[in-house]
Structure formats: structure tokens, C-alpha cells
């Protein structure tokens, strides 16, 4: 792996009594797409905003291309591009004008036509920002993040609040960026996004990185198990089902019972027999191959999206 272009060591940040970051560390190699996956409030946005130079850390160090984001020098700002979680532009600014404006501010020539075409905004070049749809605004935000051809791109929840169809269109754009070997740090709470787009993922919870690796490596933590999620007529202690054949793990979650099994058919048969013997009933059953959410559940006992 090439040398790290983003280095984060033991980053700490508090907001009053709340410790948002409690020692986050990771590195991103050049050309890598790195994801920070975690629930709301995990510390993802705080981490990325410190790296963008938008917030000051209380402890630890961070460097981006050898530069200190905390100083937020003009050279640093030209090196990075960012799509913020919440931001806007004036309603009466046209799409084309926004691209020209930011290109000028970065001291670069705007390849307006190419950017508009690339992000599917050609027909909207003269449209006012206030008249754009959510997906169009997000595409413009990505275009603005790339207008100065930065070395590193930060994307903070880039598809949050967008409908699934639009989200997939945005994923296509990110996959293009990935194929261009752009260095990207992406925060998300969507499993599909992390699994599809990221070379490596750090799972963040309560201000700490609790797991880090490629999506495949992380899923293998679920020990090659299959997830079986059941809802029962009568509540049951999860420990009761741990002894069933093939069960590697069992826990209650949101009123349902989640089992991880190494031998799913045997586990299901044993489960049905057990329920019948105890006068209980199976109301629903779902089977899935392990996902990053399973890794998160295994490590925290909670769902990624509560």
C-alpha cells in the first residue's frame, strides 16, 4: 500500500460534557476510498470536519498531504475538496455561476462544460440553485468539491436524505471517482454504500474506531456465519437459543431475535422444534449473509440505524 496521504492519530474532541471523539486513529493511502461507517452521533462528522479544517480537535494529530488541517491554510484548502453534510448556496445563484465562482476562488479555470456533463447538470446550467432537486443539489455539491481537482475529497453523508434511485446515481459518480484513483474519505450510515464503494472501512461508535479493514475482512469477523432473524409469538431469552445446533451467536434486537449460524438448515430445524416444545410460535424468519451491520451488532449489540 502506498504511503498514507491522510494520517489521524488519537483524535479527541469534546462538546461540553459530551466526548464526541475518544481517540480515533486511522490512515488512508493515496488513491484509496476509505469509509467511516457508524450510527448517528458516532463521531464520523466530527472526524471529517476536523480533517476538512472546519473544527479544532482537542487532542491528537491529523495531517492531510503532510499539511495540518487545523491551520486551514490556502494551500491546504486547494489540496482538499469536500461535500459537507449540511450546506447550501444562495437560491438565486445559477448552476453555471456557482461553478465559475468557486473555480475563481480556487484560482483555477473552470471546465464548466465538462463538469456539467459529467454530473448530469447540462440541462440545468442556467437553473437557479433554489429550483434544483435534492439529487441535483448534491451532484452540484460534488462538482464544486472537484472543480479545483483536489488530491483528497471528503464526502460527509453524501447520499443522506436522497431517495434510493438518486442514491444509486450518486454511487455511479463515486465509482467513477474510484476508478480515477481519487483519494476519498466517505462517512455514511448506509451499509450498501460502505460495502459497494469503499476499499476499507472503519466502523465508528461512540467516538472510537471499533473495527477497521476491507468490507470482506470485516464481514469475515462474523465467522462465516449466516444471519437468521426471527420474530416470535412470545418473548424468549436469547441464551435459550445459544445451545441450538450451529448457533455461533444469539441476541435480542429491537424485539426480534438474531442468530448467527454456521449451519443454517440445522439451526432452523432445531429452532422450530424448540419453539414447539415450549409452546411458542415462529411469526417471521429472515435469512441473510452477514453484512457490516452484523459486525456492528456483534461488537455493540445495537443496530447501525436505531
Amino acid at each position: 500500500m502506498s504511503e498514507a496521504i491522510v494520517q489521524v492519530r488519537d483524535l479527541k474532541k469534546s462538546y461540553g460534557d459530551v466526548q464526541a471523539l475518544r481517540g480515533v486513529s486511522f490512515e488512508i493511502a493515496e488513491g484509496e476510498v476509505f469509509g467511516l461507517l457508524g450510527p448517528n452521533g458516532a463521531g464520523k462528522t466530527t472526524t471529517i470536519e476536523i480533517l476538512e479544517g472546519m473544527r479544532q480537535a482537542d487532542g491528537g494529530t491529523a495531517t492531510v498531504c503532510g499539511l495540518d488541517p487545523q491551520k486551514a491554510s490556502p494551500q491546504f484548502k486547494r489540496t482538499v475538496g469536500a461535500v459537507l453534510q449540511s450546506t447550501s448556496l444562495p437560491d438565486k445563484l445559477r448552476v453555471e455561476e456557482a461553478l465559475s465562482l468557486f473555480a475563481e476562488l480556487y484560482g483555477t479555470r473552470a471546465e464548466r462544460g465538462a463538469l456539467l456533463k459529467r454530473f448530469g447538470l447540462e440541462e440545468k446550467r442556467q437553473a437557479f440553485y433554489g429550483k434544483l432537486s435534492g439529487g441535483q443539489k448534491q451532484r452540484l455539491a460534488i462538482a464544486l468539491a472537484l472543480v479545483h481537482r483536489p488530491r483528497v475529497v471528503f464526502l460527509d453523508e453524501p447520499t443522506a436524505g436522497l431517495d434510493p434511485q438518486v442514491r444509486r446515481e450518486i454511487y455511479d459518480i463515486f465509482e467513477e471517482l474510484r476508478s480515477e484513483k481519487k483519494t476519498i474519505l466517505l462517512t455514511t450510515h448506509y451499509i450498501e454504500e460502505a460495502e459497494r464503494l469503499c476499499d476499507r472501512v472503519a466502523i465508528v461508535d461512540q467516538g472510537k474506531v471499533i473495527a477497521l479493514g476491507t468490507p470482506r475482512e470485516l464481514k469475515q469477523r462474523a465467522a462465516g456465519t449466516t444471519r437468521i432473524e426471527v420474530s416470535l409469538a412470545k418473548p424468549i431469552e436469547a441464551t435459550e437459543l445459544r445451545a441450538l445446533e450451529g448457533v455461533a451467536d444469539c441476541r435480542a434486537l429491537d424485539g426480534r431475535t438474531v442468530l448467527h449460524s454456521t449451519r443454517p438448515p440445522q439451526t432452523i430445524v432445531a429452532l422450530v422444534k424448540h419453539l414447539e416444545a415450549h409452546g411458542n410460535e415462529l411469526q417471521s424468519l429472515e435469512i441473510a449473509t452477514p453484512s457490516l451491520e452484523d459486525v456492528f451488532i456483534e461488537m455493540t449489540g445495537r443496530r447501525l440505524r436505531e
Partner: protein
Amino acid sequence: MRHAWTLTAFRLRLAMRNRAFLVFGIIIPLIFLFLFAAVFAKKGGPAVAYVLASVLAMSVMGSFWGLSQQLVIFREQGILRRFRLAPLGAGTMLVSGILSNVILMVPGIAAEIGAARWVLHMNMWGNLLSVFVLSALGAVTFATLGLVVASVANSMMETQIINQFLWLAFLLLSGVAIPLPALPVWLQKVALYLPATYLVTGLERALLEFASLPHLGAELASLGGSAVLAFFVCQQIFRWEPEEKMPRQAKLWVAAALVPFLLLGVWETKQGGRLSEARTIFQTTFAERPAQKTPPPAPPAAKP
């Protein structure tokens, strides 16, 4: 500086697309001009120039409201934080706002002077250079004061409350809505501590006494000094993010920006002649002219 011009052009473009600019920048000041003239300057002449000084001051002071609200809106809507990512600092954002305000003020000022001269029969131009320099410097000063308020206030509601309070004081106590000599003496002394007073009295002298720039030193120095101090204060307390709250003690920075007027107010109260000069201008402008004595009719010629 290049970025400041880029942002200024961007702000001007947005303003041109906002109908409120036409209404508040040109139409409403003209309405006030005609209204004041109808009440106080029916006969035209110097009285129109007196009224014009008030209306010009009101237009210039509009920078106070406009820029302060725009900054708060930009901050609350997350527009500022997008600009924060770009390689530019708080100073550039502030300068572009002030520059755009000064430029946007020009058409309104020109329309008011033109209307006073050609529609209301103001029989003099006054010292136009002094009028424009005072107006431009006044726009800078009030825009910067507005930016201080916007930097200090934690929300749009707070901004509007502070602006209303200061605006009413400027409007009612500095000779804009009510001629200064018409106020009770103790209120006239309070007016000496307000930046708007120096703008209004300076414009009166420029229009009615043709005062040149060297003769407006006190006005230019007080407005200019306050603008510089206010700009410095704005840069120190500028906030990009809506959730960054201003600590209470930082609100004292607003007072710091008004220090030049506090000092000038004290000096004028003790030794200055601003109030007596304002009275003289008022009395000269609105004095009833004695009725012309008409010669008695010639007696009819005696009949032979």
C-alpha cells in the same frame, strides 16, 4: 483582493435578482423624499436640500440592515460554511459585502439627488463631491456596524431586535426623521453620541453650505475611524458556523466599535459647535422671508 472583487460581483448579481433591492434601495427612499418635501419643503429651494440630506442619510444607513441580515441568513442556511472551504478568509467575505453595499447604494443616491433637483426644484447642487464621499463613507461605516451586530447576534431574531433598537435611535435622534434643532436640548446632546448624527449634519453642510471635504474633517474622521475599528472587530469575532454561539462578554465588542462616537460625543458636548451649526442651518433654511413691500398705487392723473 482579487477574491474580494469576485465575491463582490457575486453579491451584486444576487442583489440585482432580488426585487427587494429595487424597492428598499430606490423606490422607498424616493417616496420618503417626496413625502418629506410635501410636508416640509412645499416651496422648494433650500428646504428641499435640507430634506434631501435626511433622506440620503436614511438610504446610506440602509446598509446597516441589509448586510447584517444577509450575513446572518448566509450563516444560518449553511452558505457561509461552503465558502469557508474555499481559500479565502473572513476579511475577504466582509470586504466584499461592504463593497457591494457601497456600489448598490449609488443608483439610489443618484435618483434621490436627481429627483430633488429636477422634480422638487431644489435650486442648488450643493457640493456633490462631498455628498458622494460622505455617502460612500457612511455606507461603509453603517455596513460595518451592521456586520458587527450580525457577528455578535446568535440568531436572526436577535439580529433584528438589536437592529431595530439601533435603527430607531439613528432614525429618531440624529436628525433624519426629526430635525435635530426640533428635539429637546437634552436629546440633542444624546444625538452627539450617534454615528448617524455626523452623517446627517455632514450632508446638510455639504448640500446647503457647499462644505468641501477639508471642512468636513470631523465627520469624515469619525465615520472613517468607526468603520476601521468596526471592521477590525468584525474580523476578530466573525463566525462561519450557525452553532458557534457568541459568549456574552464578546457582545461588548459592539461597544468598542462605537468608541470614536463616544469620544466625539464628549468633545462635541463640551466644546463643539455642531448643535449650534445645525440650528443655524435649520433656521436659515426654514426662516419665513419678510413679505415684499409693494409700492402704493399711483394716484390717478388729475383731469385738466
